[in-house]
């Protein structure tokens, strides 16, 4: 502790009287701006801060630096309306660099109108908005619950992109959900070349026009054409392969991020994909090759896979190294084509080209896909060789076929791995999991814990809560050795059993898991956050059960 050597009068310092009359008004403007910048959420806080006093008002409302970013969503606040957004853009639009707009259509409470539409979602409302956004670099535009939006309120894609590309020439990142538009912004709307040679202005963005827009946006490096959440069953949309040619020609190596589905959410039901075989001439091979060879600067690739992509396509992808690639997310969707021809060999060809990959996420969702040969022990064995820097692996399957993995041992060689998420791997012996976790131990610290998330498979009764049972009964001794290790520090130990009761009574379903609850509590006491809950589903539907185990730990 540092102490004062002397005071003027030679006595100890009396801290009470030495407190100077510094107040909030004494702080320099730059310092207040710094404080204001740290308050979250920024724009709402700034509006409130502006009401504290005259000086704060000037600082909050008239400092361009504080208005570089604007997130406007009626999920965040019901006061986020069109009027509010419009006024903010009029006042601060020229300073805005980042703009994220997300609206969920909600029911109107007074009954005057079926639904309250918070934003006029038509192109001509947007034109004056965009005219004030000349410095915009990032635009994210999304609309959920879109089926409630009347047709004439939707954006006209060609016109919107035309205004956007003229008004916001500095745009670097552009992300939008296809439900914003008059018709879904999907493949059937990307007409490769209308036979007449004239742009199609009615149905949606045509590829020739998209090429013009992309050419205008000289700084664009991130493009996300994402599907919106939908409750429909036919939830796959298909892009024409010529989209790949357009991306290769107009963006090429400057394309850093490409997504054709919403990568942030497992729950999103729509997967956009590119159907290569829809090109009658060469099965889309020319377009695919152009994309793979030209877009070598990709850092993130969130790609919807369908049956039209097989081993031969992945081999072409792997022909040119993608040394910048850091995150690859592949999501499958069946579009009713031929049988899948993508195997672990194809996937290995693709991964071989990405030596710097840090995150690999594979999501298999369709209930009809027979793609069981893709994620295998052989693939896992090659991961440390091809992608030694992996920090995150998600292998998630909701298909009828579980993943064909029987061991996690090769992953112990991935020194940087901190997150492993697995779903439907019934062949991995649960008794091997504690030793796998301990093998990770030397790579962990309180700043870098290791997280394992296992979701048991829902393919058969035996598998549905296999990991939870192993924790409680079958492999209790192995798990206890791990949890009782005095050097293990638990960040998280959650076990969740979800049950949906249908034909069976809720009480019957709950009773089935009482033993499990008691055994878990006896074995782990307060260390485990155990949750067994039941939800109703159709009265005539079978009960559905699935277990989750999440462990996060580090080793001291």
């Amino acid at each position, binding site marked *: 502790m540092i102490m004062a*050597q002397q005071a003027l009068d030679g006595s100890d310092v009396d801290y009470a009287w030495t407190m100077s009359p510094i*107040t909030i008004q004494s702080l320099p403007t730059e310092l207040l701006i710094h404080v204001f910048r*740290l308050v979250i959420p920024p724009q709402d806080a700034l509006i*409130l801060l502006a009401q504290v006093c005259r000086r704060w008002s000037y600082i909050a409302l008239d400092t361009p630096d504080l208005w570089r970013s604007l997130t406007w969503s009626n999920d965040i*606040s019901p*006061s986020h309306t069109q*009027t509010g957004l419009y006024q903010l853009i009029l006042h601060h639009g020229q300073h805005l660099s980042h703009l994220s707009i997300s609206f969920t259509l909600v029911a109107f409470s007074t009954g005057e109108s079926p639904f309250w539409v918070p934003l006029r979602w038509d192109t001509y409302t947007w034109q004056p908005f965009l005219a004030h956004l000349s410095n915009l670099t990032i635009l994210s535009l999304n609309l959920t619950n879109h089926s409630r939006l009347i047709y004439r309120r939707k954006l006209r894609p060609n016109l919107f992109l035309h205004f956007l590309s003229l008004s916001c020439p500095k745009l670097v990142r552009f992300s939008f959900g296809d439900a914003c538009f008059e018709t879904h912004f999907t493949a059937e709307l990307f007409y490769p070349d209308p036979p007449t040679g004239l742009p199609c202005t009615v149905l949606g963005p045509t590829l020739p026009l998209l090429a013009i827009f992309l050419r205008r946006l000289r700084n664009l490096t991130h493009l996300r054409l994402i599907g919106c959440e939908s409750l429909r069953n036919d939830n796959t949309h298909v892009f024409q392969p010529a989209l790949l040619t357009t991306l290769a020609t107009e963006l090429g190596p400057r394309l850093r991020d490409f997504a054709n589905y919403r990568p942030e959410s497992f729950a999103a039901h729509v997967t956009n994909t590119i159907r290569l075989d829809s090109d009658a001439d060469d099965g889309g091979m020319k377009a695919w090759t152009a994309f793979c060879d030209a877009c070598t600067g990709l850092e993130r690739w969130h790609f919807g896979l369908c049956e039209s992509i097989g081993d031969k396509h992945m081999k072409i992808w792997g022909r040119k190294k993608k040394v910048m690639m850091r995150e690859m997310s592949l999501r499958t969707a069946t579009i009713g084509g031929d049988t899948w021809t993508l195997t672990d060999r194809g996937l290995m060809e693709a991964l071989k080209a990405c030596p710097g990959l840090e995150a690999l996420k594979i999501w298999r969702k369709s209930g009809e896909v027979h793609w069981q040969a893709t994620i295998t022990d052989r693939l896992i064995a090659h991961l440390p060789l091809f992608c030694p820097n992996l920090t995150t692996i998600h292998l998630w399957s909701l298909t009828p076929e579980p993943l064909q993995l029987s061991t996690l041992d090769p992953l112990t060689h991935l020194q940087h791995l901190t997150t492993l998420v697995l779903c439907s791997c019934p062949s991995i012996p649960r008794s091997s999991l504690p030793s796998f976790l301990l093998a990770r131990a030397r790579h962990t610290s309180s700043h870098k814990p290791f997280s394992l998330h296992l979701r048991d498979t829902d393919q058969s009764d035996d598998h549905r809560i296999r990991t939870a049972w192993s924790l409680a009964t079958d492999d209790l001794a192995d798990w206890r050795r791990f949890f009782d290790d005095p050097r293990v520090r638990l960040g998280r130990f959650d076990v969740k059993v979800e049950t949906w009761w249908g034909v069976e009574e809720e009480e019957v379903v709950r009773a089935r898991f009482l033993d499990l609850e008691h055994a878990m509590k006896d074995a782990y006491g307060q260390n485990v956050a155990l949750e067994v809950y039941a939800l109703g589903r159709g009265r005539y539907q079978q009960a559905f059960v699935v277990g989750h185990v999440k462990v996060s730990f580090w080793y001291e």
Partner: protein
Amino acid sequence: MSDPANITLVTMDGTTFTVPSAYLHRSKLVQDWLRSEGDKQAMEVKHVTPFVLQGVLNFCEIHAEDTSEPLADPADPTKPFEADPRDDAFRGMPDDQLLQFTMAADILQIPELVRLTAQEMASRIDGKSPDQIRAMFNPDDLAEEDVDSDNEMGEVGEEGAISK
């Protein structure tokens, strides 16, 4: 000439503190002074009280051996703020003291301390109404004409927009 290994700081009331110069390697003001006037006996820190300077120097002592790259700009958005348990004393202090430390950090130009105190101020402001903020930070200091009684400055309107 002063000992180059140590530096003496004099506060507004003449109280002196002599500390190893290495403690203050993150203070741009002190480093500039050492370069230009390092041959003088002591550096005056006129606007800082002994109480606050002692706290600042304790912060510097705690972080003297940190190996992290010095922050060039406390507002650098690319370097997210991470709470350090060693700084808990700063997070627990009353509002008026926090203001004094924020000011002192700014005067001595120690970006890490500016960031810490600004972050703490922001978290205290977060979620508060204008009246609550006025009450927190010395409302007597706000002259009547400073307080926006007629909503001229800006108001969350019916739809949450700024009325101006």
